[in-house]
């Protein structure tokens, strides 16, 4: 099973990275078309950023694509693998590939922490922590979401939107809310450890809690219809998703 999943992961990753071949093509077309074309490194950075994002989300979304296209879900369930082993077999190879590429991306493309201009040690620590969390936790959340949509109905658009809101929360509105919280805490000269914990909680807790409410559903995963399971999933996720959506709204007002 590991061999199959690793092969599938590498094939899917290869497919995503084949889009990188478009970068020189787009650059070449633009240099013919535009007089003030940007340097190739700008194109490369944008292309790599987009590819890494596409990689994480497509690996998660296509986690059960072979079961879907081969109609092999019943066969998979008939194998004497525990649910936890299946979770590991499905998630770990994809997570490893995602982490490797994100780490590489952070090293070469993303701003290293040393470039942060702030002299505030707490802010710098918070930034590094945030960066580490984004690198490690978001792919994990995305993979868990991919697994959960895979065992239900990954073609259900409402379910996909709900998972996107949850998994992208720590990347976009989470840090905005955390920085505001940090600024308010600085004004009131609060305890630094408490501030750090609050920042982490603000960034991560809403998404983690939302995914964790689905654990009972994962435990009862059998070969019953995925569409039915997705309906139950949406009911369970309704309140956490509504809260996270409200936090998205709040973050937009604070931007």
């Amino acid at each position, binding site marked *: *099973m590991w*061999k*199959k999943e690793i092969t599938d992961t590498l094939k899917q990753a290869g497919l995503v990275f084949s889009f990188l071949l478009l970068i020189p093509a787009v650059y070449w077309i633009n240099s013919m078309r535009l007089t003030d074309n940007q340097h190739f490194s700008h194109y490369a950075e944008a292309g790599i950023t987009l590819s890494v994002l596409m990689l994480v989300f497509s690996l998660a979304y296509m986690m059960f694509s*072979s079961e879907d*296209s*081969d*109609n*092999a*879900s*019943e*066969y998979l*369930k*008939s*194998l*004497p*693998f*525990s649910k936890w082993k299946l979770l590991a077999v499905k998630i770990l190879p994809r997570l490893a590939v995602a982490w490797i590429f994100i780490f590489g991306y952070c090293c070469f493309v993303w701003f290293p922490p040393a470039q942060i201009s702030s002299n505030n040690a707490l802010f710098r620590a918070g930034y590094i922590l945030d960066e580490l969390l984004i690198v490690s936790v978001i792919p994990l959340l995305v993979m868990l979401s991919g697994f959960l949509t895979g065992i239900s109905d990954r073609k259900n658009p409402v379910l996909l939107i709900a998972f996107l809101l949850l998994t992208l929360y720590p990347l976009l509105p989470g840090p905005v809310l955390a920085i505001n919280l940090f600024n308010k805490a600085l004004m009131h000269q609060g305890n630094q450890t408490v501030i750090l914990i609050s920042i982490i909680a603000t960034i991560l807790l809403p998404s983690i809690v939302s995914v964790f409410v689905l654990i009972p559903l994962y435990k*009862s995963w*059998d*070969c*019953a*219809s995925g569409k*039915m399971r997705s309906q139950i999933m949406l009911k369970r996720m309704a309140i956490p998703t509504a809260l996270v959506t409200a936090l998205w709204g709040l973050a937009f007002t604070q931007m």
Partner: protein
Amino acid sequence: MIQLKNVTCGYGKNPVQSNISFDINDGDVVMITGPNGVGKSTLLKVLANILYPTSGTINYGWPDIKDPRQLIGYLPDSLSIYKSMKVKDLAALHWNAFGVKQSSLPLLKEASIDWNSRISELSVGQKVIFHLSLILSTGPKLILIDEILHSVDPHLRNLALETLVKTMADRKPTVVMVNLNYNEVEHLVNRVIFLTKTGILLNESTEYLLENARLVVADEAPENANVVASRSYTGRTEHLVLPGAGEQMKLSDILTMLMVSTYKLQ
């Protein structure tokens, strides 16, 4: 012995079968039959431990086995298998999952299946034979087969049934098959469970059925006899009595009559 106690199963809120209970003795070859849509395949999935019953329990009688699927070979009706994989790769995956050390599948050569070919390149019959040989290769104590042999050509079907008979003779596994083609398997089974929408209509050994089921041809149902089915057929009215006096019947005729009668009641 496998025991099902008050099992309710189905998909969603509406159960397909409610509160059904029956036992299957070790080494039994059971045919589950009945009209379409009564939950035969659903029940087989429950037995395969891939669909959890809404309520009720299943005791496989294997106290030392943590995961019953370890000893179950399930051949579904949907050709559910990784078709994009190569025969050898899926075989390796399967053996690895069941923790068995094997290196070949005996049926492949007879079914002209190339070890290196992709499963998607095989014919439907070859896919079924491959899947069957795969599940038999792990030495299951419980073999579950869901109708799929109907889609196989006569040569491959014979091959599959012969292999099954040989496996039953060698290893004495318990076999449960969902079947609507009675002629083909009537000599294989020793118990019949006839399902209807309201539950189990009949759960008897084939020996008992052949000894006691009788056909009575009469316009009116015979009095003082347990008439289990009646039908009008080729201009005459027939009644199936169990037990009773009358013409002796083949198992396939008994089940066909039950089927016709059940449809009339629905």
